[in-house]
């Protein structure tokens, strides 16, 4: 089984809010692709978007 989808499926069912699924997906993709550094980079990107507004 693909590691990304397995991890996503495991965690997504436990989320309290379904609107957090999109972020979870994004973070798992980054994590599986490039590791924890990529997660931080992704979050920085999100912060940039928020601050840029």
């Amino acid at each position, binding site marked *: *089984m693909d*590691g990304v989808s397995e*991890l996503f499926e*495991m*965690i*997504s069912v*436990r*989320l*309290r*809010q379904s*609107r*957090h699924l999109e*972020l*979870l997906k994004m*973070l*798992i993709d980054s*994590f599986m692709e490039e*590791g*924890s550094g990529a*997660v*931080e980079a992704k*979050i*920085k990107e*999100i*912060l940039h978007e*928020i*601050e840029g*507004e």
Partner: protein
Amino acid sequence: MLRLKNLEIAGFRGINEGIKLNIDGKSLLLVGENGVGKTSVLQAIEWGLLDEVAFLEGDEFKREDALVNLFNEDGITSVKIAIKDEKGAGLEIVRERKRLSKTKGRSSLTLNVNGEVYKAKSAEMKLTEFLKISPEDYCTTVHLHQEVIRALVEGDEKDRSRAINRILGIDLLSNFGETITKQLHSASVVNRSLRAVQGIVEQLSIQRKTINDTKVAEERALESAKARLIEKGVDAEKLDQAINSLLSETKQVMDETVKELALDELASRLLGLEIPIERVDKIEETLDEIKDIKRELASVALKLIRKAQNKVLELDLLEKQHTSYLNQLTDLKLKDKAEIDNQMETVNVQLTELDKQLKRLRAKEGRLTDLKEDVYRVFNRINELSIEVQSIIKNYGDENVIKQKQCMLIEQEDTLKQDLDRLGVYNNLLNLAITYIEAAKENVCPVCDRPIEYGNILSSIQRKISEELIKHMEELRQRLQKVKEDKEKLMETLKELKRLRKALGEYEAKLDEARKQFYEITKIEPIEPLLSLIDSQIGELRKNLDEYGQEIGEFNMRLNELKRARSIIENLTSVEKKISEALGISGSSAELSESLLKGAKSKKEELEKLRLTYERVENLDERINMLEDIATLFRRSASVNALSKSLEEIDQKLFIQQEKLQKLQELVEALTDIRDATNSIKMEALEDILSIIRNDLNIVFSRLLGHPFFIKLQLIPEGEGGAHIYRIAAQSKDEAYTTYVRTRFSQTQRNLVAISLFFAMAKRSPAGLVILDDPSQSLDLEHKKSLIEVLQALMNEIQVIMATQDEIFADQMLKSVPSEKLRAYKLSEWSESGPVIKEIH
């Protein structure tokens, strides 16, 4: 259950030229020194099966290809693995890859399943299906990497915990959870951004509140300014008219005052006064100018008032002084200065004469007073001496009586002396008689013819007579002594009486001298009693002195009166001089008085006029205040407008920042949700795995450790969030004693923990294949033997592939396991071509 049959490797990591290992489904042992290529063989198996190799990750691996051998001229790596499962199904895996600029990258796979060939994606799918294990399961249950053992043996508690996570297969969940937890740390970039935006929102809110409070205050002030104007009768809707009217009235009053006070400079400033109501700042400037002119007018008027007041006061004072001096001179009936001077000279002569008399009388009084004191003293002394003389006469009689007593005492003395002499003679006679008797005595009694004891009789008689004589003589001597003393005392008394009589004579002489002095002072015959006479003379003198004193006092009073008159005339002259200067006129006293009254009246009229002018100027304040109220109204209105605009701007900024804050809070909430979900799953997975493997874990650990007491292994997760720390503890059979492995055991035990955990996990694997890289790295000889025993038992069930640099371990293994079950190769002499490989078992 898989069994590796053959393995061919070329151009992979440490192996360049192709090598072929005929394993034939047996277990495999690779022996060789460090860096000779043993791990490359094990990694080649991993890569061949999974297309990836664990631990080849990180930045460096993104910059070069660590898979293809560095010296391989073709730049191609190739791994060929022949496998058979328990059903005898055969599988040949051929995985190849060209050299890339990074380590990761898809390879090409060719799969031959019982003659059927699969390639690319279909080959990958078929292989996964055949193997029945994911890459994660592979690391957990198939391949125990040396990095995992090293982390457990040498690493800190975080490294150990990560290694355990990897063995337990929850490392992905754990790492993800840890990564998310890190993002929620108070110092994380998310929280920093959140705090920064919260700070901005707070700051903007404070600014907004301040501006709003100011605006509300300004609005209130505006309303009260309007109310004030309405109260003063100004139509708030027609402020232009009100301003013009107030300004025109103010200017008119100022014009009149300027002319009245002859202030030409201010007149030109008044000409330019206009109020442009469209500009608030200009209105205030004009108002400032009006207030300045008004202040100057009031100041000039006030100065003039003070000057006039001073003049009026000066004239009033001069008038009062002039009248007063004239009246005083009239009362004294002295108006001519020369006459006053003449009278003063006469009085002074009389006073000088009186003074001389007074001094004379005072000297006389002084001498009499001294004389009185002397006489008094002499009288007292004479009295004292007379009392002493009378006392002596009373006790001893006068001089004649004392002399008679002396003669009697001399006679008594002579008689006593004669008696004493006589007794002396008697005593001598007695001694002679005894001596004679001693010489003429008879020693035998003539009657009884017995010896006579004369000695006792004579000495007894002699003693008796001598005692009587001495006693009598002593009495005579005492009486003689008494007579002598009395005689001396009488002599002393007589001397004292003579001395007293002489002293009395001296004091009598002094008294005579005093009488002479009295006569000299008073020319009056001194009659007794002298002291009373002196006292009456002193009384007389004092009476005369009082009379002279009174007379001098009267003359002095007159003299003072004359001096005062002269001073008044001088003051009058000075006042009249001042009047002449003040009014610019001259004349007699009467003329000056009249002019003074007229001048004072005129100055008072002038002062009254100035007061009215000042009052009129001061009354301008009312109009100026109204103009200021109107200006305040304009200013407040402008301020309210400006504040409203600022408020709108700040609201806009606040809205933007609040939106950002909301998004950041949502992000934190989402991250928290993800972290909590991840960690709860991880904890569940951990509990599941530990409950499943606990039994196997304890069996393997107990066998490997060989400890008589601690036989159970416990993993205790601690801490919250993604990064759990595992405490590794050993427990006694009855679970009564627990000790942390790290505190009581050596690195060996930690190595055994890694192996025990791995074996317990491997037992769950469907692969039936175990690959161990340097499993004995920290073990002592005893535990190496334990490990060999465990592995030997394991080799009976599944295929075990091992690499070791430990020659002792390898020797023991080769001695313990027969060649039917184990094949061994020695790798040595590594070069650019790769290692030299030799089959040794």
